[in-house]
């Protein structure tokens, strides 16, 4: 393999551009008071309370940097849809971040109360609206029963629908426009999913985006782990002979490095949902575009472990009324056990690098 000079140049470009405007972004976020508020109990773990007042939505550095450079220099058939998916996810995340800071706490009506109101309200129009809204109310209550409590931001059910929309753009592109329906597998023949392929695409993109979002709980954790993941996919894209996507991955790496410079403890800003959802969606989209989506399971292992720990904890608590881990996601468990934040983050980085290497090796089969 030749030295990927083009990709390295894009890394440097993205890094330089992001570093130049990051201080202005930090200043802007402070001025608008887009900072971490007193929102959940995890602030009481370790030194998390010191993060109160740290600007969030630092992910804008990534989203804007990657978008501008890619639109100006790498706008083509291979990169349009991954970027669109990233931008839809970023929009969702941005709205959620802003609502969490400036919005009001929203209550969720129970199903029985909704039905009761729909039966007894004195105005016909209001009764009709309540009945019409009942399926949505049931949908939201299902999420509530799975541990998603309404707060100020978007409800989990609402986020899920918009994420499906983002994933659908990639699914449409791959299945309808390109006619893909198979999943590449190492060592064996590709598996043909047929009509289930778009479902698979949407599911994976939503899962990866949420996994990165859940992992974004410590300074440098998700950014550092994303770096190794994007590196892995950049190498695979080069090896697959897909220069547009390798350059897109390289741009992401450069922007992430600049972001990480400011996000290492003590963080000057945090990614927020705008960054975590966007980068997760972009990573998954790139993986699909180079036909190596199955490697997400290996390359993104730290994220898989984090989201799995949350899922298993939630199920175990619900079913057995006991804890499986001391706290979920897993990085909080290590904090409770006594690991320092720096130790936890760096071990996750190492873990991420190892699995990224493994993913690249598997990608050659």
């Amino acid at each position: 393999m030749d030295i990927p000079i083009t990709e390295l140049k894009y890394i440097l470009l993205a890094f330089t551009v992001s570093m130049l405007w990051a201080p202005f972004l930090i200043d802007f976020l402070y001025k608008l008071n887009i900072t971490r508020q007193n929102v959940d109990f995890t602030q009481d773990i370790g030194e998390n309370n010191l993060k109160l007042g740290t600007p969030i939505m630092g992910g804008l550095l990534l989203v804007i940097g990657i978008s501008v450079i890619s639109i100006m220099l790498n706008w083509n058939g291979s990169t349009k849809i991954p970027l669109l998916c990233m931008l839809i996810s970023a929009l969702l995340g941005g709205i959620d971040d802003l609502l969490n800071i400036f919005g009001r706490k929203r209550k969720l009506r129970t199903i029985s109360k909704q039905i009761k109101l729909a039966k007894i309200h004195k105005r016909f129009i209001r009764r009709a609206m309540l009945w019409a809204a009942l399926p949505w109310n049931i949908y939201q209550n299902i999420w509530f029963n799975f541990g998603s409590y309404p707060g100020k931001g978007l409800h989990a059910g609402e986020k899920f629908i918009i994420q499906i929309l983002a994933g659908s753009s990639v699914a449409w592109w791959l299945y309808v426009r390109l006619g893909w329906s198979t999943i590449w597998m190492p060592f064996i023949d590709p598996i043909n999913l047929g009509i289930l392929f778009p479902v698979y695409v949407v599911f994976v993109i939503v899962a990866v985006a949420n996994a990165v979002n859940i992992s974004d709980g410590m300074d440098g954790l998700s950014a550092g782990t994303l770096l190794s993941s994007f590196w892995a996919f950049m190498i695979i894209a080069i090896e697959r002979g897909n220069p547009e996507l390798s350059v897109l991955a390289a741009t992401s790496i450069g922007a992430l490095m600049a972001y990480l410079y400011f996000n290492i403890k003590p963080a000057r800003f945090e990614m927020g949902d705008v960054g975590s959802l966007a980068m997760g969606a972009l990573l998954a989209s790139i993986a699909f575009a180079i036909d190596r989506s199955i490697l997400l399971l290996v390359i993104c292992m730290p994220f898989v472990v984090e989201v799995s720990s949350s899922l298993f904890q939630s199920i175990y608590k619900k079913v057995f009324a006991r804890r499986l881990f001391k706290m979920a996601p897993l990085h909080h468990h290590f904090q409770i056990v006594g690991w320092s934040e720096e130790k936890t983050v760096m071990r996750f980085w190492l873990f991420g690098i190892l699995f990224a290497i493994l993913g690249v090796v598997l990608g050659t089969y």
Partner: protein
Amino acid sequence: MNIQQYQIPQEVKDLIEQYRYLDLGSQKVRTPYFINKNRIRGGLRSHVGKGTPSELTNEVKIYAKLRKFDLNSASEDEIVNFMKSEALGIDCSGFVSHALLAWVQSQQRAKRMRTFINYKPRNIKQRLQYLTKPVMNTNVTILTNDINSDPVKVKDAQPGDVIKLSGYVRGDHIVLIVSVEKDPKGKVTEITYVHSGERFTVDNGIREGRIEVIDQNKSLDKQNWLEEDLQTGVKYTYEGLIKDTKNH
């Protein structure tokens, strides 16, 4: 005089000891009383008065870390108050359930509550709840109903029997008999019980009490109950507190 004493198995004694003195590093603290009066559902069982000693210990340590409460430097009273503020404790039926479970497990007669307690679920949802969270769904009524227990007379009392006390403000109460003393003629002279009791000023939670049996042919309410509040010296006998006693 040759007094015979009948006691619970060592495994149950060990469990009671673990509840009596939760191991929190440098401190050993008595588990306070807690009852799920707000009927919170879907939470951890240690937060609704039904946790095991190890679960309670873990939760105390987690919440101490979350709230930056120094367990090593706090006094026992401070730790107990901290536990109460975080809804960590054990209620009467939770304590007795775990004790009975430890007993049958030590005898290798059952591994789970649902093996020896009949819950009589009325629908699928209840069946699933009793299957996965039996202790959380066990209360005084279930432990002492006609399906799961038989009434016995004072003269036939044995360790492992429970006493149900009705008429409390918050519903029924249950205590576990841990030893029975008999004189050489076989007459019951004293019954010792343990429970997680609420009605004590400074030392509610896991407590031991004694009943001096004056006449084993009379019911429990006619005997001499000796449990005493450490602070006030008031003896919490049956009179004035309960309407009825049955020992099951």
